[in-house]
């Protein structure tokens, strides 16, 4: 073909494809469910399912060992965001007990072409990210709570995800039976 393929930057195309596909999913859910809370729940669940599988990919690519404390975990999460979404969240706002931290995003690839209409202002558009973190950490036996405290789509200056350590899951219990 005479056209140069180089005109399409593969990386960019792929992240746009992801963004748009995700947008299509969210708008489908808004059609499927009357209730915004239900949409939030479904997005979180989908993220969870992805996280559960993504962690295997992450571990096999990075040869990471087990994290001994939350600081290490936070670094790994940051690394994962860099690898998979090409964004580097800042880690900050550590709680005194170092069991809680924030991931701060200046840009969020999932919301690139997104504007929230006023009637869905309770939608947690990127809920999938929280689900993903939670699912992935659960597979390495860390139970965490994960939620948005700031969101650019709602007019905040940056997007902030708060991750809170709940407990270490025990080795003996097989997944799904606790």
């Amino acid at each position, binding site marked *: 073909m005479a056209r140069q393929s180089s*005109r*399409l930057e593969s990386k960019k195309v792929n992240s746009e494809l992801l963004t748009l596909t995700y947008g299509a999913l969210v708008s489908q859910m808004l059609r499927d469910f009357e209730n915004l809370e239900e949409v939030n729940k*479904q997005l979180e669940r*989908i993220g969870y399912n992805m996280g559960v*599988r993504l962690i295997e990919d992450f571990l096999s*690519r990075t040869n990471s060992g087990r994290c001994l404390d939350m600081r290490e975990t936070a670094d790994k999460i940051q690394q994962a965001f860099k690898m998979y979404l090409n964004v580097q969240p800042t880690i900050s706002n550590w709680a005194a007990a170092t069991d809680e931290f924030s991931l701060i995003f200046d840009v969020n690839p999932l919301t690139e*072409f997104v504007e929230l209409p006023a009637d869905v202002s309770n939608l947690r558009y990127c809920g999938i990210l929280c689900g993903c973190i939670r699912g992935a950490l659960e597979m390495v036996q860390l139970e965490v709570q994960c939620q948005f405290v700031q969101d650019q789509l709602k007019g905040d200056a940056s997007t902030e995800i708060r991750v809170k350590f709940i407990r270490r899951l025990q080795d003996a219990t097989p997944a799904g039976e606790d």
Partner: protein
Amino acid sequence: MLVETVFELLHSELVAYTTENKENDLSTLEYLGYSTGYRLIERLTREYPRFKDELDTMKFICTDFWTSIYKKQIDNLRTNHQGIYVLQDNSFRFLNNLSNGSQYLEYAPKFVAFTCGLVRGSLANLGINSTVTAEVHSMPTCKFHIQVNRT
């Protein structure tokens, strides 16, 4: 950067979500592909000169479009020059990790529906109304049939 991995996971969640309570209805999944393709193509073709004709557009779908999304070109493009195009991909990405042969063949339609929509949506925004179907005999080979609707 491994956005593709994330996209693959998201795609399989899309499949699971849209077919959860309706095993044989792939229309939602196809529609998700359609609306994604419709928007994506606008961004993709920004820098391109206008396509000469329909065949030129199809060639674009087979080469640059496919490469940027599925990491490879279409292996074979055939047409009867009357509005029917058959695109064959010998190792279609969404089927690659599923099976090599006929095992799980009954699930194959779920994994190609999104792409049918993606192609249909892209063509629609390039001014070509079409019907896109897929045919899988032995994974991971997949044939996409594009029928241009002229009315």
